[in-house]
C-alpha cells in the first residue's frame, strides 16, 4: 500500500494536468462555437452533429485514434498530446450542446426587452443572453468535468501518465488495491472539480462574493499548480531521464522496472517508466523518441511492424530479419536478446490432457469439435491463429476472447478447455496446465529483445553498453518464476524487479 501511495502525487499531478487543460480547451472551443451556432443558424446542426458523433466513438478508441492522426500530422503522437486532444474532443459535446440550448432557451420577450432598452447585439449577448444561459452552460461544464476526469484514466495506453496507470497495471497484475486507489483518487478528483465549478456557479448566481472568490481562488491555484508542474521539465535543463517503456502485462511491468534499475545502477543516469502502453503504441513511442528502450518479442515485430504474413521463419532467421529492420529501417538498436522466449502455447488442464491422451497440438484435432478455446483478444486477430488452426486442422466448438489476466481462471474453472497461454507465464504451472507441443512449428519464435531508440546510440552509448550486458540474463524459468510472484503471490512488480537487479549485480560482480 505504501508503495502504491508513493506513486499518488505523480499520477494525480499528471491526471490533474490532463484534466484541467482539456477542460479549459473544451470550454474555450465550445462556448464560442455554441454562441456562434446560436447566431448563425446553419452552423448549429452540423456542429452539434459532429460533436455527437465524436461522443459515440468509444473513449478508449478515440484516444487511441489520436496516435495515428497526430503521427500523420507530424506531431507528438505518444504521450501528453494525443491524450489532451482526445479528452478535449470528448469534453466539447456537453458544453457545446448546453451552450446552444441555454441561449436558445432565453425568453424571446427578454431578448426584445434587451433591444428595447437600447442594447447592441453584443451587449444583448453579454448582459442578457449569456447570464441567463449560464446555469445551463455550467451544467454542461460540470458534465464535461466528470466525464473528462473519468476518461483521462484511459490516457495511460497512449503514453500519458494518469491515475489510469494504477488501474491498467492493477488489472493486469491482479492488484486490486491499485485499482481501488486509482478509482478512488479519480472519483475524489471528479467530486472536487465538480464541487468547485458548482461553487463558482452559486457564487455568480446568488452573488456570494466570498464563495465566488474562494472557488475561483481554488481553481486558480489548481491551474497554477498544473501549469508550473507542466512547464518545469521544459524550463530546467535537468538531464532527461532514460525512459523505459512497458506494454500492459505483468512480464512487461517487471522487465521495465528491472531495466530501469539496471541502467541506473550501471550508468548512474536517472530513469523514468512509461507503462501500460498499447501494444503497437510502444514501438511507435520508441520510433518517435518518447521512449528510449522497451522489451518486445521478435515474432511480434515480425508480424505487426514488418507486416510479414509468412510467419514460419526459423528462430535465427527471424532475429536477423528483425535486427535489420530495426537498425536500417528505424535507426533503432536491438540492444540484447534477453535469453527467453515468450510465445503462445496451447495448454490444457493436465488432468484433462491425461484423460484425452493429449501430448501435441495435433492430438487436439479429433477432440476440438467438443472443446472451447479461450485466448486474449489479440491472439484471434493475429496470423498465428489461422496458422495453428490450419496446420493442425483444428475446428473448435467455440472461440472465446477474453482478457489475458482472466484466461487462466477460465481454464481452471472449466469454462474453456484449451487456452492460448504465454510460455513464460508462471500460471501454467500454478494452474497445473499442460503445454501441448507444437511439433510442426506452426507458432513462430518470440525471443524477448531489448529495442533501443536512436537517442541512446547518439547520446548515451554507456546505456547501450549496459543494456548489452543483459544479453542472455534471463532464462524462461527465471521469467516464469518472476511472473508467478506477481500474478499469484501478489508481489509488486517493482519489488520483484529490484530483487532481480540485486542478484544480477552480485552475479556479475568480479
Amino acid at each position, binding site marked *: 500500500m505504501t508503495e502504491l501511495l508513493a506513486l499518488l502525487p505523480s499520477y494525480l499531478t499528471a491526471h490533474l494536468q490532463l484534466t484541467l487543460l482539456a477542460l479549459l480547451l473544451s470550454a474555450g472551443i465550445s462556448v464560442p462555437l455554441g454562441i456562434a451556432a446560436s447566431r448563425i443558424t446553419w452552423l448549429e446542426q452540423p456542429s452539434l452533429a459532429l460533436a455527437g458523433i465524436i461522443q459515440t466513438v468509444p473513449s478508449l478508441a478515440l484516444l487511441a485514434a489520436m496516435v495515428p492522426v497526430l503521427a500523420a500530422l507530424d506531431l507528438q503522437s505518444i504521450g501528453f498530446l494525443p491524450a489532451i486532444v482526445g479528452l478535449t474532443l470528448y469534453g466539447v459535446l456537453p458544453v457545446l450542446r448546453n451552450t446552444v440550448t441555454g441561449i436558445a432557451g432565453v425568453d424571446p420577450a427578454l431578448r426584445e426587452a434587451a433591444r*428595447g*432598452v*437600447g*442594447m447592441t447585439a453584443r*451587449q444583448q449577448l453579454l448582459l442578457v443572453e449569456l447570464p441567463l444561459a449560464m446555469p445551463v452552460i455550467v451544467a454542461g461544464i460540470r458534465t464535461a468535468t466528470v466525464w473528462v476526469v473519468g476518461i483521462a484514466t484511459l490516457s495511460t495506453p497512449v503514453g500519458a501518465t494518469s491515475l489510469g496507470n494504477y488501474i491498467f497495471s492493477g488489472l493486469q497484475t491482479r492488484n486490486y488495491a491499485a485499482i481501488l486507489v486509482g478509482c478512488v483518487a479519480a472519483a475524489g478528483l471528479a467530486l472536487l472539480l465538480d464541487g468547485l465549478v458548482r461553487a463558482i456557479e452559486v457564487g455568480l448566481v446568488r452573488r456570494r462574493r466570498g464563495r465566488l472568490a474562494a472557488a475561483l481562488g481554488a481553481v486558480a491555484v489548481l491551474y497554477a499548480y498544473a501549469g508550473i508542474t507542466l512547464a518545469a521539465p521544459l524550463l530546467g535543463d535537468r538531464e532527461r531521464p532514460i525512459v523505459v517503456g512497458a506494454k500492459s502485462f505483468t512480464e512487461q511491468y517487471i522487465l521495465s522496472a528491472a531495466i530501469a534499475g539496471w541502467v541506473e545502477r550501471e550508468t548512474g543516469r536517472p530513469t523514468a517508466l512509461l507503462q501500460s502502453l498499447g501494444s503497437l503504441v510502444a514501438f511507435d513511442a520508441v520510433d518517435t523518441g518518447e521512449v528510449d528502450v522497451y522489451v518486445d518479442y521478435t515474432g511480434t515485430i515480425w508480424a505487426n511492424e514488418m507486416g510479414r504474413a509468412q510467419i514460419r521463419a526459423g528462430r535465427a532467421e527471424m532475429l536477423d530479419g528483425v535486427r535489420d529492420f530495426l537498425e536500417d529501417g528505424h535507426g533503432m538498436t536491438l540492444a540484447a536478446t534477453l535469453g527467453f522466449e515468450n510465445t503462445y502455447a496451447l495448454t490444457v488442464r493436465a488432468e484433462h490432457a491425461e484423460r484425452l491422451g493429449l501430448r501435441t497440438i495435433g492430438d487436439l484435432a479429433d477432440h476440438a469439435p467438443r472443446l472451447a478455446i479461450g485466448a486474449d483478444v489479440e491472439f484471434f486477430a493475429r496470423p498465428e491463429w489461422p496458422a495453428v488452426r490450419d496446420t493442425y486442422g483444428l475446428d473448435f466448438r467455440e472461440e472465446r476472447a477474453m482478457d489475458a489476466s482472466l484466461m487462466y481462471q477460465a481454464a481452471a474453472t472449466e469454462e474453456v478447455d484449451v487456452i492460448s497461454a504465454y510460455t513464460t507465464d508462471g500460471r501454467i504451472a500454478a494452474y497445473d496446465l499442460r503445454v501441448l507441443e507444437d511439433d510442426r512449428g506452426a507458432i513462430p519464435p518470440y525471443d524477448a529483445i531489448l529495442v533501443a531508440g536512436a537517442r541512446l546510440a547518439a547520446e548515451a552509448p554507456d546505456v547501450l553498453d549496459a543494456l548489452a550486458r543483459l544479453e542472455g540474463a534471463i532464462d524462461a524459468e527465471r521469467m516464469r518464476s518472476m511472473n508467478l510472484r506477481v500474478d499469484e503471490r501478489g508481489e509488486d512488480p517493482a519489488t520483484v524487479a529490484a530483487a532481480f537487479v540485486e542478484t544480477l549485480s552480485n552475479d556479475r560482480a568480479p
Partner: protein
Amino acid sequence: MIQADGLTKRYGDATVVDGFSLNVKAGELVVLLGGSGSGKTTTLKMINRLIEPTAGSVRLDGVDTAELPPHELRRRIGYVFQRIGLFPHMTVGENVAVTPGLLGWPLERTAARVDELLELVELDPALRDRRPSELSGGQQQRVGVARALAAEPRVMLLDEPFGALDPVTRERLQQSFLRIRTRLALTTVFVTHDMTEALTLADRIGVMHDGRLLQLGTPRDLLTRPADDYVDRLMSTPRRQAAVVDALIGGTTAEARS
C-alpha cells in the same frame, strides 16, 4: 415631436398595419385604442424600430429615425412592454440602471437616478436589491416604468402597461403615471384596449381597427362625433356598462324598499 407617416407593416400577404400616420406634439399623450390584433403593438414597435416598417417613415424631432443606429434611437425612447420584460438575473436597481449604464453615465449619477425613480414610481427603496421574481405584478409594472424613464427620455411608448392588474391597482398606477408625465413633460404614445383607461389618460385618442387608424381626436370628439359605427360602438361601451351598474344599484334599492 413624433411624426409617423404612412407606416405599413406586412407579413407575407397579411397587412397588419396599413398606412398609419400620426403627429404627436411635444408633451402630448396620445392613446392608441383598439381591439386585440388591431396592430397597436406593431405600430408602437415601428416607432422605436423594434420592428422595421415595410413602408413609411417616423421622424423624431424632425430627424428620420431610419438614419440613426437603432440602439441609439432606443436609448432615447422609454419603452414599457406589454409583458414587462424585467431581466430576472438583475436586481430591481440594476434593471432600472440598465440604459444609463449603456449610455456610460457615472455610477453616482446612475445610483442617484435609481433612487429618484423608485420614489417617482412610488416604490419602497428597500426593494432596490430584490429580484423581479420577488415582486408583485403591480410592483413589477412600476419597475418597468422606472426602467423606461431611467435615461431621461423625452418620448415614452407604453404598451398596455397596466393591462394585467386589478382595477384598484391599475387606477393608482394610472394616477401616478399622469403625475409623472406632467412633471416630466413627456411626449407619450400609450397603447390600451381599455376604454376607461383611454378616457382617463388621453389628450387625444387614436382608434385602430384591422391595422388602420379609423379616427383620431380628443375624447370629447370621439364621444360626440364618432367617425363610423365601429368607433361609435367602442365609445359607447363605458356608457352601456354604466347603465348596467345603474340598473344593478336600482334593483338592489328596489329590493330593499319592498
